[in-house]
């Protein structure tokens, strides 16, 4: 898993996620790695809907963050977004 995590960290989609989290949600980039648990950066279920809405507005694709569990990581969020924008 570490290999996969480090490999996604450099992708444009991951960068897009960290940029939105930093600029719109006040979560500094340096606090966000693929293994970061969403709860640990105070992204509860309501906040995740906001994140999904912001990503949706930027990417033009529907991101259903409602399906993420409390223990989900940023990598899980990345997978959702990546699927939504038609990535592999």
């Amino acid at each position, binding site marked *: 898993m570490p290999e996969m995590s480090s490999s996604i960290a450099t992708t444009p989609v991951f960068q897009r996620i960290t940029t939105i989290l930093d600029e*719109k*949600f*006040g*979560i500094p980039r340096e606090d966000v790695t693929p293994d970061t648990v969403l709860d640990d950066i*105070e992204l509860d279920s*309501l*906040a995740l*809907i*906001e994140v999904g*809405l912001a990503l949706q507005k930027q990417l033009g694709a529907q991101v259903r963050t409602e399906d993420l569990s409390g223990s989900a990581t940023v990598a899980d969020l990345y997978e959702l977004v990546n699927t939504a924008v038609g990535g592999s």
Partner: protein
Amino acid sequence: MARRSVARGAVAVTGIGLVTPAGIGTAENWRRVLSGVPAAARDPELAGLPVDIACRVPGFDPAALLGRSQAWRLDRVSQLALVAADEALADAGLDPTAWDGARVGVVLGNALGGTASYEAAHDAVRDEGPGGVSALVMVNWPINMISGYLATRFRAGGPNLVVATACASGVTAVGTARYLLRSGVCDVVLAGASEAPLSRTPMAAYHRMGALSTRTDDPAAASRPFDADRNGFVAAEAAGVLVLEREADARARGARAHALVTGYGASADGHHPSAPDPTGAGVERALRAALSDADLAPGDIDHVNAHGTSTKLNDLMESQLVERVLTGRPSVTSTKGVTGHALGAAGAIEVAYAALTVENGLVPPTANLDKPDPDIGVDVVAGAPRPQRIGAATSHSFGFGGQNAVLVLESAGSR
């Protein structure tokens, strides 16, 4: 006096936090209201409305004051309250990480809720459809959320509520908090109010009903309580939070009391949705009830922090009330000349100013009182602060809906 205050369970104001158009922080607020320099200005966010003047909190940066997370999660109405509460607790010397939160209550006043959150949601539904609506609207728009956020931040697990009596809400909150302390339900109550009304919908609506001053060409002169040329109020955002404790408890822990809250009275006009009853019968009931609660005679009141909104009807009715009931010819001030009218929060910040007035023996002047209304015969302080030794003062708040609330404050040192 001492025996009476203790026996009747006086409540001490041991902490004050203020976030108002007069500044962020109690010291800055006190300097500004003593200066008599009005805060009203043209407001870029209200551009294009018939009335585009208002009183905003200067330099309010929620990310810097509360952290970046709270800056996007919370409506401004809760942000203002949290910053005020932080200051009030520090002033009281209380540490929320160390207290028994089950004994700590929160009672705040508010009139309009999270107006910016509501407006953003409305716009999103209209422009983007229901899928564009923030999931946080229902934890920001409803008025109860303000005290809920204080409970979360300070681990305050006792009774928690927001009271709504329009522009009397702040005084109603302090009066209600006093009940919780006197009944023994709580040991500490964070009491006060917050309002963030400077959104386009409420501002357009207040203008439509004729409540706002239309002196848009000269904003600084627009809020002029008791002046002959007053023509309406200037809306303001603000929060004021007090830490209240039973006087005996405060004394036992060596806390400094700014003042004591010794009486509370409330009433309804039952007259009209927005206009005060010109006979003043309703407000007189509230005032007499507060005096009775404090066990004071009408002539014992030395000072009044008036509702003094700068509307034609209120200021005349209120001055007649003071002349008719308070026979000791008290000094009168309306700090709204400086701050504007913070609606549901007005009562809270004015109780704080009244406490500081009693504590410091200095009455802030009523700004813009250039030409006193000849029909107003009370002793309104204007021009400069007036030194005065004050044993007892009242703070008045009257709301749309005919809801009235009056508090009596007494000097902590005069007993």
